[in-house]
């Protein structure tokens, strides 16, 4: 029998805030955290702007020795997880430890650690690389550290589907809890892409904006890299209600589909297929969707294709449903993006507040969507979806229901 699944806690670290509530306040206010970088490696190139998690101090979360074992991306994962668990009030019995899943997304894993290693090797010609480079770099390090910290012995793994990584992670975890394979799940993702080598690689792609991230705006120039981590605690709804847990939202649908089209160019049909699948999985009609948290990267190609995908999947509702892209506030945190946006969607449903898109100049007529921009839109929200569309055409969509609709 399929169980209903509740989101009972969230933890977040990103440019917009160092906790879930701090981040949500910035998102509600549409206060962009995109800034000029001061680092020399960023000043040397053509692009100087990113959404860096400046408020994050690893030593507030970890002992120095513990922090040294982790790349920044794993620190984000573990710190976000600790906050999510704290907020959920979930306590682990030995039985539950063996029945808890950990599924974490990351696009690049510990890119900063391998970059440091290569500076030693090729830059300083030292002929050696730090012995922790591999365990710090591996994409599953975030998930592994979480299992070790809490003694969780259930299914645990990492998902790497570029910018959809943590949406795929949360979706898989949701299905496991729904199907009774796990009795709790910690799911989300983290990314720390702001290092010299990786930055140069993004620069070469010519997809970054020099000014800021302006999703669906006529003058949008591209994406802005961000960093951070977000984790959701998922539990069977019934158990969550029994233990009096805070219920932020119900997670009720997950869909995924592949474009089978192009390494970097998106396809609206693949995106629409993932949206339809999420709605089918949740048993929802397009008319019931009250908010879409868009992938909304701010590139020409994504935003136009996504607007088209919404019409393809939702029909007339696709042009009317309120849409916003919170990437305009927290930047594009790649493998953490889906989890940050799932968080934004959950909080929108909890509070009945649609967080606005920041930095809009004027809506692009090519993007026929009901874009919420500038200030938040308040009202009763029943259900919402969160879109993630990855390089390589791997699409994932989550559906959530408001807690008061339960």
């Amino acid at each position, binding site marked *: 029998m399929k169980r209903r699944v509740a989101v009972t806690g969230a933890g977040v670290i990103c440019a917009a805030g160092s906790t879930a509530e701090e981040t949500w306040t910035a998102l509600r206010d549409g206060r962009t955290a995109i800034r000029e970088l001061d680092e020399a490696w960023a000043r040397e190139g*053509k692009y100087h702007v990113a959404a860096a998690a400046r408020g994050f101090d690893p030593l507030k979360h970890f002992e120095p020795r513990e922090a040294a074992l982790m790349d920044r991306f794993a620190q984000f994962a573990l710190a976000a997880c600790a906050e999510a668990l704290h907020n959920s009030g979930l306590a682990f019995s030995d039985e539950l430890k063996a029945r808890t899943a950990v599924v974490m997304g990351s696009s690049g894993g510990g890119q900063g650690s391998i970059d440091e290693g290569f500076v030693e090797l090729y830059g300083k010609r030292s002929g050696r690389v730090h012995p922790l480079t591999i365990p710090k770099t591996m994409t599953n390090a975030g998930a592994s550290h979480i299992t070790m910290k809490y003694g969780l012995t259930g299914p645990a793994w990492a998902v790497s589907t570029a*910018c959809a990584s943590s949406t795929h992670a949360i979706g898989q975890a949701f299905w496991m809890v729904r199907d009774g394979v796990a009795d709790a799940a910690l799911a989300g993702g983290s990314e720390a892409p702001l290092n010299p080598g990786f930055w140069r690689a993004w620069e*070469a*792609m*010519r*997809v970054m*904006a*020099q000014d800021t991230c302006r999703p669906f705006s006529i*003058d*949008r*120039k*591209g*994406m802005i890299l961000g960093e951070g981590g977000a984790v959701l605690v998922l539990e069977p709804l019934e158990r969550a209600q029994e233990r009096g847990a805070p219920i932020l939202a119900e997670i009720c649908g997950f869909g995924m589909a592949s474009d089978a089209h*192009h*390494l*970097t*160019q*998106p396809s609206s049909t693949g995106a629409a297929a993932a949206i339809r699948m999420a709605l089918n999985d949740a048993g929802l009609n397009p008319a019931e969707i009250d908010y879409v948290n868009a*992938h909304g*990267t701010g*590139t*020409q*190609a*994504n935003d*136009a*294709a996504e607007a088209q995908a919404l019409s393809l999947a939702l029909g007339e509702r696709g042009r009317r449903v309120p849409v916003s892209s919170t990437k305009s506030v927290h930047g*594009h945190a*790649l493998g953490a993006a889906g989890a940050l946006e799932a968080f934004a969607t959950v909080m929108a449903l909890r509070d009945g507040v649609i967080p606005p898109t920041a930095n809009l100049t004027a809506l692009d007529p090519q993007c026929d969507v009901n874009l919420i921009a500038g200030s938040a839109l308040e009202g009763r929200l029943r259900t919402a979806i969160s879109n993630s*569309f*990855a*390089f390589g055409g791997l699409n994932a969509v989550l559906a959530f229901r408001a807690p008061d609709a339960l």
Partner: protein
Amino acid sequence: MEQNEQLRARVIAIIEQAMKMEAGRVQPASTFEELAIDSLDGINIAFALESEFNINIPDDELPKMRSVADITAGIAELLATKESGASVTPANSASTSNGSAA
């Protein structure tokens, strides 16, 4: 004029090399559309052109370079700008970005 022909021959060779095409495939009148060159190929070619000519092709210029003729003219302009020592980008910059989903 002869200089332009030399430049065009180098541009053609770079496109063929970057796209792993046999010599002679790219002609002076070729367009990206005819050659089935998409935006990802385009940044690949731009990268090769930047290395070959030691120039910097601004993001706004790239979407305008969609044929051998466009590229040859664009490179000639960028080389002239470089020689004159000015660091301005060519006039009439379009405000489009090379789109991708990321």
